[in-house]
């Protein structure tokens, strides 16, 4: 069993509004799975189905190979996008309460909370009320509460919203550490910067449909379009040299620095014959840069969504 969660043809609609249509996903164990898509695409609905907050109209969701059962909620940790805590309840008390709701015993919960409070350096907050804390501080508590029962599957919906960059980094490291320890993680976001750093797999959901999924590295490979960034140290005037090149290659953009005699350009190559091109170029000038442009997750995201829109 390599997948912690498998969704088969899951559909869900609210009245006339379709939130998910025929979504099939396989989420492998021990990886960070990015669930990407614009706002209102259906990510949250899918996550709520996994958490058994709502139920699919049709289709099937398997957790560790068996259909979702009420007992599974204690094996899942969920940090919702719309999150908060009881404002007038003490931090320690409500962390204990939420941990017990996830099935931990009181003493065990206390022990683990002590560990986490020390780890994130918030030990003295135990008797404070949430309304006395800043938003970022409350987010830390929220994170602890989510991971405290050591679930097999963790679901983070926009986990970094509300954090300053320093604390966001702390949380990111904690997430990576959790993965190392063997936890499977679903990471839902519409911000692409964090996807590159964290995700192993991604799925793209747009207007209730899945339009792309797979390993991030493979998707990137598939989205390569043979555009190369090239840097040359040339002997003569850049303009002239460029003209020679333009006769032979499809140059997209270029710039020339006369002081350094450095010519930079991007080129669209017809097919995978990089060796030939490289040898051709190096016979003419000193090649100091020759790299393929790999599309960012953001590019892929925008391109796929646009393609989908154009198809309609």
């Amino acid at each position, binding site marked *: 069993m390599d997948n912690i969660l498998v969704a088969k043809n899951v559909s869900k609609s*609210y*009245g006339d509004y379709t939130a998910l249509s025929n979504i099939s996903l396989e989420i492998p164990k021990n990886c960070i799975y990015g669930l990407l898509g614009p706002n209102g695409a259906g990510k949250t609905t899918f996550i*709520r189905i996994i*958490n*058994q*907050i*709502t139920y699919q109209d049709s289709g099937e969701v398997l957790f560790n190979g068996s259909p979702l059962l*009420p007992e599974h*909620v*204690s094996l*899942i940790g*969920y940090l*919702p996008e*719309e*999150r*908060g*805590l*009881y*404002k*007038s*309840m003490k931090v320690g008390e409500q962390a204990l*309460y*939420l941990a*017990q*709701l*996830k099935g931990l015993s009181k003493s065990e919960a206390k022990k683990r909370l002590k560990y986490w409070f020390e780890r994130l350096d918030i030990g003295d907050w135990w008797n404070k009320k949430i309304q006395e804390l800043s938003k970022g501080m409350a987010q830390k508590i*929220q994170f602890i*509460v*989510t991971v405290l029962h050591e679930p097999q599957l963790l679901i983070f919906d926009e986990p970094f919203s509300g954090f300053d960059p320093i604390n966001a980094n702390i949380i990111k490291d904690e997430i990576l550490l959790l993965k190392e320890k063997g936890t499977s993680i679903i990471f839902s976001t519409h911000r692409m910067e964090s996807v590159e750093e964290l995700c192993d797999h991604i799925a793209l959901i747009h207007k209730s449909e899945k339009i792309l999924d797979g390993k991030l590295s493979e998707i990137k490979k598939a989205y390569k379009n043979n555009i190369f960034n090239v840097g040359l140290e040339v002997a003569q005037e850049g303009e002239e040299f460029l003209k020679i090149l333009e006769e032979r290659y499809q140059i997209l953009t270029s710039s020339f620095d006369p002081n350094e005699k450095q010519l930079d350009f991007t080129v669209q190559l017809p097919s995978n014959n990089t060796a030939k091109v490289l040898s051709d170029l190096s016979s003419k000038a000193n090649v100091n840069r020759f790299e393929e442009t790999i599309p960012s997750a953001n590019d892929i995201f925008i391109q796929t969504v646009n393609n989908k829109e154009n198809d309609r």
Partner: protein
Amino acid sequence: MIDKLGLIIKREYLAKVRNKSFIIMTILSPILIVGMIVLIAYLTKINDSEKRVISVLNESQFFKTEFKATESMSYVLFENISLQEAKDSTSSLGYYGLLHLPNKSQIEGVANASYLYTKDNPNTNITQRLEGVFQKKLRQKRLVDLGVSVEQFSAVEEPFEINLATFEGAKSVKGINEIKVWIGGLFGYAIMMFIIIYGTFVMRSVIEEKTSRIIEVIISSVKPFQLMLGKIIGTSLAGITQFVIWIISASLLLFLVVLFLDIDLGAMATENTMTRGNMNAVGQFPASPDSDMMLYAMEIMNIPWALLISSFLIYFILGYFIYSSIYASIGAAVDNETDTQQFVFPVILPLMLGIYVGFFSVFGNPHGPVAVGFSLFPLTSPIVMLMRLPGGIGEGGVPLWQFILSIVLLIMAFLAIVWLAAKIYRVGILMYGKRPTYRELFKWLRY
């Protein structure tokens, strides 16, 4: 599952009981209530001690000794002065009013031309008393005209009260039905108050979870229905705690106040019933008050207390669950408390109707069609049926089939309404934004 429900109940209970305003209300309310009672008793006392003086300018020869001083009224007779002088001296002496009887040849003429002059609109008690004097005199005069002597007339005036008995021959007393309805009504009223106060608490607590956005964290651990149930039970336990504290501390305080301030609550009670006049006043004991007191005590002992209290518990629990689940679903449907008005009013309406229709129709006829209808209808039955029940079940009381039907209907309504409310709750807690319409609420039922 069960231990999670226990956790929720415990949290809701503690959150409520530790709440500052809840603590203040728990301590302050009995003091306020007892303070009110003491104040009313005190004011009644002052009111009683104020004697009203009416000056009488009697120019006729028909009235002489009829104006006798009573506990609250006395008369001053003016003689040989003009009406204007009488008016002036009445107001300068600070008397309550001036009664002027002109000189006429016929008593009817005197009566018709008599006036009561006062500074403001006169108190009805006073006008009634004065009218009584005239009426008696007029009746007496007409009877004399018909050949009845004054002595014979006063013999006719003997007060009379009819003897009451049931078919079984037991002697019964006046007003006992009303007392019974009042006792049942007290239970019904307690249910209404409890529902309105603690239903609102449930609603607020739901809104709080929604606005603090903790709701999604919690329902990823427990079922929304469990959360709703735990909330309702936890809040009602806090409510029962508060009620018990209120009852104990209020009765203790009242006891102390009566002991130390020497306020005669009994006198207050009779005063109240006296003024109610036409309501078969309970306080107007006929000839032998002792034996009648015994009868009242007997009748009250005869109220089927076990039945009354056990049905109170049934109606209380079912009624409270019905209404508080509606309150919970209202809380789930809106984002803030100001938006609740439109939904809360239709909820309070049947409760109010239960109390008012109950008191009017059950008072008049405990087994009339309106009383029966309202005691069967599930949204009002917890209040109205309890008013009818002190008469017992079976002969002379509530027919057994009505009692059973009312409970069956209540249970059916309980299941249906809690189910519907739970559905609205489940959808509503995750909905943010504008206040939904009734149409949208109806749509949610199909999600």
